[in-house]
């Protein structure tokens, strides 16, 4: 096979001179059919880059089906790696370079507008000579189209090169690609080889060796055939870092917080947190319990928490809807509970693998009656780790449910962050088993703060029955009007008391100006990057990311008031003001805009799209420029 007829590419001369292009950042994508290992190659490339001190962000490109048919537009499986000479906070705009294992998955990326005009395409060329004429034709058609559209398409004989080392190149191509990229981006040869070796050594020395060969072949091929290299200077990060996705960070946060029980029911994109947790939780005496459904999962968690074992339940949209009743119970009976919602596209089953921030209002208001709870959002992957620890503390101190909002973007994105340093304070104290002093009441609400001391089953002298019915300080069912009012009041006062402990969020940019972009959760990086860009153009624009969404810190109103216009940018649906039927009487605002308007009576505008993907800084930049025009 190695002796097949020369193709166009082989006819290319080996390059003599290399152009070295220095850039502050580059966005690379690798796309393949599902199962061809593009993600593994990309993750390793990201890790190597991080170790070389680059800022990075990687995010998986996930096909909708488990095993989509090969060579289809919607079947693209892959990864995007953004690397920069600065701390990278988001997936960035369009890709500068893409490696594609076939032209169809490539089209999937082109047609959804993910490539920069003129982007470099490294394309497997085996299809040009495929035995199926339809495939050959499709390949040539696409190739010609892309070239004519101005992309710099470089055909790469990946299959052919790999066949020199293995009979099943489909499984080794990804290392060939990694080799090419390491050459193109001047990655440290020894470091990269070590990573590849470590990646495969679990599967035995032989496998590792083969993969190293493929890696070297790719490196070599690029060295010989490509006349350019990129130089992305190090961001100078020298602190110890960890790189992981948000779901892994959540799981490690659970470990770090001293929780002992995670009850869940599988649901995308939350489940992978439980997968990872299932592997390690038992090592610290924890249990991941897969319940029969989401209701049972949250019931199980409430039971464990009531019994003094700190518990979390992890889910996504549809699961949140199902847990509504028992989250309300937890609020009413004042049992601490941490609920993690890794948000996905809604409503209903929606877009299970895609990102949305559509559950904020539901997090606050889904339960019937008044059931106070704390709602916090993770803005970064690092935040996923620490938010769980914070949530556990709040839940136990204030005896209420805390909802942690993450999303599909954080769940699968990867980013390095400073390695956490374990603190004893993170961990929940062991449960109090001492006898309860005479006269202690299970809901002995402090009239000012609503706080009361928690009694746990097993404690002598503390016996009481809790109930989701209206109850008095003894926990006894009570129907008297003032007792119901008092219970509701005390549960609400806990939020007020907690609110007093919050510090106002920090403004990104100047504390006053023309336009303030407000967001929450994972849009932080993209919004701040966009704001930075327009600030560099001289506009007076700042950004605010709100972590505590219920209650909200004091001082936010002051911040909002210091700008001429405030716009919320969130990934959830809102009506555009320009729509024919829309006016101020019926316009439906984005989630956070709704909250800010109600609380602060400031005419907060909103811009949002439900594209099922994170915003690119570039499109936010456009929105900012548009919105700036509206300011008189």
């Amino acid at each position, binding site marked *: 096979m190695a002796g097949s007829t020369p193709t166009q590419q082989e006819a290319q001369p080996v390059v003599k001179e290399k152009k070295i292009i220095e850039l502050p950042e580059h966005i690379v994508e690798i796309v393949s059919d599902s199962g061809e290992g593009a993600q593994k190659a990309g993750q390793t490339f990201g890790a190597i880059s991080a170790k070389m001190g680059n800022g990075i962000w990687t995010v998986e490109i996930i096909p909708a089906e488990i095993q989509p048919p090969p060579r289809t537009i919607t079947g693209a499986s892959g990864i995007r790696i953004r690397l920069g000479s600065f701390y990278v906070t988001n997936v960035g705009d369009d890709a500068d370079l893409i490696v594609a294992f076939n032209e169809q998955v490539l089209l999937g990326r082109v047609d959804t507008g993910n490539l920069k005009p003129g982007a470099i395409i490294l394309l497997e060329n085996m299809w040009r000579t495929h035995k199926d004429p339809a495939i050959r034709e499709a390949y040539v058609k696409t190739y010609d189209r892309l070239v004519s559209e101005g992309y710099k398409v470089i055909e790469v004989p990946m299959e052919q090169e790999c066949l020199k080392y293995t009979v099943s190149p489909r499984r080794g191509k990804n290392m060939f690609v990694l080799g090419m990229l390491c050459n193109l981006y001047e990655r440290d040869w020894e470091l990269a080889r070590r990573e590849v070796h470590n990646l495969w050594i679990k599967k035995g020395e032989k496998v590792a060796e083969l993969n190293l060969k493929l890696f070297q072949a790719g490196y070599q091929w690029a060295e010989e055939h490509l006349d350019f290299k990129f130089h992305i200077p190090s961001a100078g990060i020298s602190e110890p*870092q960890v790189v992981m996705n948000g779901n892994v960070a959540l799981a490690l946060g659970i470990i770090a917080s001293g929780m002992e029980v995670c009850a869940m029911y599988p649901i995308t994109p939350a489940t992978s947190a439980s997968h990872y947790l299932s592997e390690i939780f038992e090592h610290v005496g924890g249990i991941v319990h897969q319940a029969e459904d989401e209701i049972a999962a949250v019931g199980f968690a409430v039971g464990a928490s009531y019994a003094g074992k700190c518990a979390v339940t992890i889910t996504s949209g549809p699961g949140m809807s199902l847990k509504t009743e028992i989250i309300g119970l937890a609020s009413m009976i004042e049992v601490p509970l941490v609920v993690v919602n890794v948000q996905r596209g809604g409503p209903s089953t929606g877009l299970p693998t895609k990102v949305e921030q559509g559950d904020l209002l539901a997090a606050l208001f889904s339960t019937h009656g008044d059931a106070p709870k704390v709602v916090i959002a993770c803005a970064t992957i690092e935040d996923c780790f620490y938010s769980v620890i914070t949530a556990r503390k709040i839940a136990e101190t204030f005896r209420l449910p805390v909802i942690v909002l993450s999303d599909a973007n954080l769940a699968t994105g990867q980013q390095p962050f400073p390695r956490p340093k374990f603190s004893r304070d993170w961990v929940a104290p062991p449960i109090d088993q001492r006898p309860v002093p005479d006269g202690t009441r299970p809901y002995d609400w402090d009239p000012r703060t609503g706080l009361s001391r928690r009694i746990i089953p097993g404690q002598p002298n503390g016996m009481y029955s809790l109930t989701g019915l209206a109850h008095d300080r003894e926990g006894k069912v009570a129907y008297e009007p003032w007792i119901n009012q008092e219970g509701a009041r005390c549960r609400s006062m806990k939020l007020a008391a907690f609110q007093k402990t919050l510090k106002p969020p920090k403004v990104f940019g100047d504390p006053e100006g023309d336009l303030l972009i407000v967001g929450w959760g994972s849009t932080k990086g993209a919004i701040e990057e966009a704001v930075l860009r327009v600030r560099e153009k001289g506009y007076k624009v700042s950004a605010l990311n709100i972590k505590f969404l219920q209650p909200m810190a004091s001082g936010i109103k002051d911040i909002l008031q210091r700008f001429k216009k405030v716009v919320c940018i969130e990934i959830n649906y809102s009506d555009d003001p320009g729509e024919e039927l829309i006016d101020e009487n019926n316009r439906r605002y984005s989630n956070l805009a709704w909250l800010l308007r109600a609380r602060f009576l400031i005419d907060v505008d909103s811009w949002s799209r439900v594209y099922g993907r994170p915003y690119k800084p570039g499109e936010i930049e456009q929105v900012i420029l548009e919105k700036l025009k509206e300011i008189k």
Partner: protein
Amino acid sequence: MFGLDLERLLDVEDEYRRLEDYQGSMPRWCSGCGDNAILTAVQRLLRDEGIPPEKAVFVSGIGCSSRFPHYMNAYGFHGVHGRALPIAQGIKIRRPDLHVFVNMGDGDCFSIGSAHWIHAIHYNINMLAIVHDNRIYGLTKKQVSPTSPKGLKTNTTPYGSYIEGLNPLTVTLGVTNVSFVAQAVEWIPDLLYAVIRQAFHHRGFSFVRVLQRCPTYLPDIFDPFINDPQNILILTHESGLQLDESLAKIYRNRVEHDPSDIHRAREIASDESKAVVGILYRNERVDVYDEIRRPKRVTTLEMRKAVLERELDKFAVNPVGGDNHNEKEA
């Protein structure tokens, strides 16, 4: 229902011996309500077993029967309709020292709670679950229940209910990992007590259905069984119930049944013309989920830290030339 605190049990045996030690608020059930008898039986059990009240947790859903926890002097969790079992499982999963009891109504367990019922049997977690089966929705004032007999006039079936009542015993006996199934009637207190006691001593999930009168809404539904003791079928066995003489005289309709015989248990359960009282099935060799999943040892702060560091190491990208965190931390 076998806790781990055998030692403690011996210790406190003397401390609690009066029924009053286990009585909570005054029961507020209608007069003549069968729930009262179940309450008494359970209070007797706790006293006789000398269980410290703080070590017993009663979990219930919503319904007349679910008021149960309030009437015990113990820990009580009066939760939401249909979800007592998952809550009880969560309580037990890491608290082997607690004795967990679950009280549910027939609507609570067999209607809205039926997913949890099936899976509680399948998971087989140590606890004692009692269904107060009055074959009607009591608290909400007379709607049809899954176990209501066909033709029963209720407020939602004013022309008579449409289908045969569900037989919860045959369902329960069909679930893999079933480990203890029994039935009792509240109007024979001694046998009720005997059944519950056996259930309590079983290792694993004990499921007891108790036929319970609701004089307010179904005053005579159990009359055929009450008026003619021949309509009660007692299951006896050396490892099951044994009747004393006086009861034996009244309840002559008896059959020897080996609780390890699942096929026979299903056959007996299938015949609803008689009210069966006794242990239908018992198997202690079934895996018990909470025992399997119990941690082998206590996790210290140091262990937790070590695991976290080990995991962080897996994700570490120490910039080339950067320090190793372990050295830093040391």
